[in-house]
């Protein structure tokens, strides 16, 4: 199985790990991520204004590229996933944005939200299946108590993201179980880490990250996993605890016994 893949800006730089571990894991699970050509940065945040068109075009290009190849579009970064899914929803359901974006783009055939956008976790849940993943795990992470950190971008707004229950998600917990570890459910797992505010106001982000980590530790987590480079940065940089934070793909590669293949590269 081959998917179109949109890595996004950070996965080519500061979050190379998130990307590399995903690629080797995908191979081990029997699917391929084919990077779309000449992708452009999604912008990191979804442009909320109803009159924002130009800022959505990078996403439309990626979405249309996948459509032309007849593939589903996979992302790993929570932010890219959020932006692509919401722009796709606009292209499908908001006539004004669809018309204007298509007028800009001059595509062979107008794009109207035909592409299915999947987060890598959704591929694992909906295309591979937890049971299959379990079978492929050669190195179960037994005894590890892992808190899933969802943040805000994966889940909200629930109606459009359609990713999981926005208030009581379980996809990451199911993932943690599938790789042989024990999920720790804690109430701040879907609260914001501060996001972009940490550029100018680190203290605000610090307060939020500490709440998140205190809550996770309080419920017995030894470590956190995330799918977002910015959450990772904030949780590492703007908190007083040294609770380790990993990209979920790193633990996946470890459980599948392919972690070393990344180091070899």
């Amino acid at each position, binding site marked *: 199985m081959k998917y179109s893949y949109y890595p996004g800006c950070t996965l080519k730089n500061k979050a190379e790990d998130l990307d590399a571990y995903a690629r080797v894991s995908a191979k081990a699970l029997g699917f391929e991520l084919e990077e779309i050509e000449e992708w452009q940065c999604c912008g*990191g945040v979804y442009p909320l204004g109803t009159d924002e068109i130009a800022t959505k075009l990078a996403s439309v290009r990626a979405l249309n590229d996948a459509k032309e190849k007849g593939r589903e579009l996979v992302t790993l970064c929570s932010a890219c996933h959020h932006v692509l899914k919401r722009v796709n929803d606009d292209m499908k359901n908001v006539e004004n944005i669809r018309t204007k974006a298509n007028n800009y783009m001059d595509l062979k055939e107008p794009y109207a939200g035909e592409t299915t956008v999947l987060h890598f976790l959704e591929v694992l849940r909906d295309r591979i299946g937890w049971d299959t993943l379990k079978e492929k795990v050669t190195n179960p992470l037994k005894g590890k108590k892992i808190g899933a950190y969802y943040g805000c971008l994966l889940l*909200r*707004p629930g109606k459009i993201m359609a990713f999981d229950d926005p208030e009581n998600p379980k996809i990451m917990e199911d993932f943690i179980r599938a790789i042989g570890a024990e999920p720790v459910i804690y109430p701040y797992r879907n*609260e914001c880490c*501060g*996001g*972009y*505010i940490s550029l*100018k106001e680190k203290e605000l982000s610090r307060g939020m990250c500490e709440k998140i980590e205190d809550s996770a530790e309080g419920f017995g987590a030894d470590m956190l996993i995330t799918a977002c480079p910015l959450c990772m*940065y904030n949780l590492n940089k703007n908190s007083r605890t040294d609770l380790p934070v990993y990209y979920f793909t790193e633990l996946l590669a470890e459980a599948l016994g392919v972690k070393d293949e990344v180091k070899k590269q």
Partner: protein
Amino acid sequence: MTNQKKQAELIQEISGVNPLKCMKCGKCSASCPSYNEMDIKPHQFVSYVINEDIESLVKSKSLWKCLSCFACVQRCPRDVKPGKLIDAARQIVERQKGGDYLTADEIPELLDPEIPQQLLVSAFRRYRR
């Protein structure tokens, strides 16, 4: 039409939000992680737009405290989505000359070696035109 009225209509247009749907339950303010940092609170954004007091709104520091975490959007029982109103007010400021909250000159000082590109990109897009 007064300038305030025009601006209020512009905010409604950009955000796509109908503030009259609000029933003043305060669920947005109850959910907001930045509440304590805001001078005008999320639920007040709705009434400021209804009362056409945009002058106060665009001066509010709340514009730069909203995290776009969508907790208010997700939980609003009336589908009012205060976060979108805040963003529209921010747009009104940023679309004016000199309205940027973040300038390129500031960046070198803010950088640290671990900063992910995503942070810079997001901040640029949220804080300036």
